[in-house]
């Protein structure tokens, strides 16, 4: 990727990556800290990054940086559903609890699956647009989504059964 394109790339993708990181880190403040290190790492590797797969690559970096961050803080909130369930719900609503469950489920799948889920559901992109964003084929998008949804539904059901 060319250096001149970095800021446009940042503007286009920072919200996506932040959403992903909030799920992984468990809170927005940590996510914002990690977000900075993610995009700086992207910048340092610009000459090795292809435009077509830059977003996929950024999701991967985000995943790795967050794992490192959580290790440093020596707490694995993202992969410990008990942590979230033990937080008293401000609204007391079932919907919010379910939403947390979902957040956790997304955080626990590989970055590639999380990426397709985000682009499909939060941004309502078509399979074709997702394939262009991530530099993969439409068929690959379809099968990744099938896999991702199967995992999410399973996790959501497990979560609901625990309550």
């Amino acid at each position, binding site marked *: 990727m060319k250096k001149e394109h970095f800021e446009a790339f940042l503007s286009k993708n920072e*919200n996506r990556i932040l959403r992903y990181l909030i799920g992984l880190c468990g809170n927005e403040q940590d996510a914002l800290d990690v977000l900075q290190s993610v995009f700086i790492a992207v910048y340092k590797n610009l000459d090795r990054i292809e435009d077509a797969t830059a977003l996929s690559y950024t999701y991967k970096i985000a995943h790795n940086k967050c794992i490192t961050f959580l290790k440093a803080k020596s707490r694995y909130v993202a992969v410990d559903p008990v942590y979230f369930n033990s937080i008293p719900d401000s609204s007391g609503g079932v919907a919010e609890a379910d939403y947390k469950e*979902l957040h956790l489920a997304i955080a626990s799948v590989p970055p590639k699956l999380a990426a397709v889920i985000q682009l499909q559901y*939060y941004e309502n992109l078509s*399979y074709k647009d997702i394939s262009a964003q991530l530099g993969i084929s439409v068929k690959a998008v379809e099968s990744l*989504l099938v896999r991702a949804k199967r995992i999410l539904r399973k996790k959501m059901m497990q979560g609901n059964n625990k309550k």
Partner: protein
Amino acid sequence: MRCSKAIHLIDLKLDGELSASNSRALNQHLDKCPACKAWLSEAAKLNIMLSASPDIAVPAWVHAQIMDKVKKLETAKPSFSRRFKLATVTATLAVFVSLLAGAHVGVQTFKSETEAYDTSSYSVSSASFGETSLMEVYETGGTYDE
């Protein structure tokens, strides 16, 4: 249609990716199959929950801070390509100057063989002049582009 096919098509339907012909075929199956119909409303829950997630935006100051840090990286060390270009220019100049100097020394040496012996000392000094200018070019080449 088999139920496994119908379940796959339900995913496509929920994602807005189902073609018109497949849509008709799926509806026909759903009319006859209560299990798949139940699955449709179950599967739709995930879509509804996911699309109901709140908006998330990176604060402008965080964006600015990233750009700021990135620019600082840039001034801290010149990029590989810039250094490479600089090195190429310097090397080309150096080769050119040493060729000139070499030719000059050659001419002087040739002259010294045909002319009086003490003029050869001139060729030595010209050779050292060549070296000095080489250093100068290297230095100015180094500072000029910075």
